[in-house]
């Protein structure tokens, strides 16, 4: 009995410091924010007061002035996530299935280099590229794509570009891992059963990579919604996102109650969209799967996996 207790004790004790640390400096601060969000800003010099509890700050956060920015942020994040997915899919597919195995490690490392270099500095790199003094602006003005060299920076488009750029590695990596795990034999089997390459990709490879797609979408969408640096560097006044809005409530307006309510709304909105996106991706996958089953059903052999193995070993 005592021996068992002694063995059990360290296990619990070892995690306690981290648990306490994260509770005191992550959970409790967040609970305080949630508490502030039901309060108000008491006059000019105070930052928050919970003397009167109400949902007024939430009503304020949903007022048209602020809600347009919430809507714009949501749209930019959805667009950015979809664009990341479309850009990353072919690249991850190529890296995992077409590149010789000994070169893949290098390519994955190259994808991670930008991810691990300073986020802020990479965004500033785009500011340099898009600036009105830059070569790109000059070229695009000469060609007539933009009317004025100042049209590139400080726009929604610039922020969207920055978002896609900054989170692309987070999309490529899970997709790469997913494609890497797809058994090549299943694709071969699909082709042996007469499906074309395009059909094999959409009905076999892509559905099998679904967990990676879901992981990538979630990993990219959540930080996009809360991004503060990208709009601050590339957006100017036109490219404001919720992050900048919340920041200004805390740093400039000194209205902690309203800023807290906005932060809570941001988190709830993000969670709702993530749940919807996962449901949607599963639903689409399920529909494709059902169609695939029907198609397979008309072909004589009942289980496609058995002939696959024979083909591979032969």
């Amino acid at each position: 009995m005592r021996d068992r207790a002694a063995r059990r004790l360290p296990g619990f004790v070892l995690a306690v410091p981290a648990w306490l640390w994260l509770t005191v400096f992550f959970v409790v601060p967040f609970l305080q924010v949630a508490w502030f969000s039901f309060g108000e800003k008491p006059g000019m010099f105070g930052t928050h007061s919970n003397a009167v509890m109400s949902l007024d700050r939430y009503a304020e956060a949903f007022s048209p002035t602020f809600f347009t920015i919430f809507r714009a942020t949501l749209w930019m994040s959805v667009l950015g996530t979809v664009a990341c997915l479309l850009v990353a899919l072919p690249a991850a597919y190529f890296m995992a299935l077409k590149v010789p195995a000994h070169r893949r490690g290098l390519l994955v490392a190259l994808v991670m280099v930008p991810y691990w270099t300073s986020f802020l500095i990479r965004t500033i790199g785009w500011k340099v590229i898009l600036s009105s003094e830059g070569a790109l602006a000059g070229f695009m003005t000469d060609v007539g794509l933009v009317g004025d060299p100042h049209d590139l920076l400080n726009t929604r488009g610039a922020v969207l570009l920055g978002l896609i750029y900054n989170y692309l590695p987070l999309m490529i990596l899970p997709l790469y891992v997913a494609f890497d795990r797809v058994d090549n034999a299943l694709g071969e089997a699909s082709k042996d059963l007469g499906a074309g390459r395009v059909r094999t990709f959409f009905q076999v490879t892509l559905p099998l990579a679904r967990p990676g797609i879901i992981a990538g979408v979630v990993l990219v969408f959540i930080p996009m919604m809360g991004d503060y640096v990208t709009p601050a560097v590339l957006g100017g006044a036109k490219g404001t996102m919720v992050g900048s809005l919340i920041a200004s409530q805390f740093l400039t307006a000194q209205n902690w109650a309203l800023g807290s309510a906005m932060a809570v709304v941001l988190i709830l909105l993000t969670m709702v969209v993530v749940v919807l996106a996962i449901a949607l991706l599963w639903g689409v996958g399920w529909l494709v799967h059902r169609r695939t089953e029907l198609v397979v059903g008309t072909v004589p052999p009942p289980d496609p996996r058995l002939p696959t193995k024979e083909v591979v070993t032969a």
Partner: protein
Amino acid sequence: MSRPSGTNLALGVWTTLVFVFLFAPIIVIAVYSFNGGRLLTAWDGFSLHPFTAIVERPTVRHTVAVSLQTAVVAAILASALGTLAGMAMARFPGRWTGPFTLLLLLVSVTPEIVDGIALLPWFVTLGQDWSLVPFNNGYVRLIIGHSLFATAVVTYIVRARLVGLDASLEEASADLYARPIPTFFKVTLPLVGPAVLAGGLLAFTLSLDNTVISSFINVSGTTSWPVYVLSSVRSGLKPEIAAVSTILLVFTLLVLGLVARVLKRSGSSVTDTMAVA
């Protein structure tokens, strides 16, 4: 398998373009760190002046020093907390692991801005309302802010490393009548060494780059390098910012190369570990 078809060619070209896209701003920053002009965005001839300006400007030196000091302490702190937690998760799983995993997951997915705006009032509550003076110190604030996500990262890496290792060595130690605590220090800790080092170095680079949390909990006098850079986005970016960034970039790449080597030698997959992070 590698039939040279039009599709494969198109995929190859697309992938190349993606890599060009990924590296374009980094190359631009490296090139513009030799910009002789007064403002970063306007190129005005090749010059080494941005690099000499680093030495001349005390603000630049001071903010970089703040960042490096913070990063060292935050990395050590996160490594200590994360190593213990990771070992506990791998070796002593129980009813507590579920909620703890959820906590780590929340720490990892919460946007930094939420951490930042939550920590700012919390430090004010602790430091001013409750008179716990240390929390008014800029270094303390930065170290705490940077340690949160980093602790989760180290925990994941250490846990992944230990789960992949057989527990029989520790059991052997116990069978030979070593008490749990000596077993921990003499057997388990050496086993997780490489993972701790890798996690610690990642925590270091994460802290070095942290912009969002730092800018909220910033105390004047202990402004970190990224916060200084972010503030100069508004006041005017100078070429020496690119110069410092290039130096830090080379430094970070060296650190990452070291992490990759350490992990490779210890046998765990670099890809998996970093993907987790």
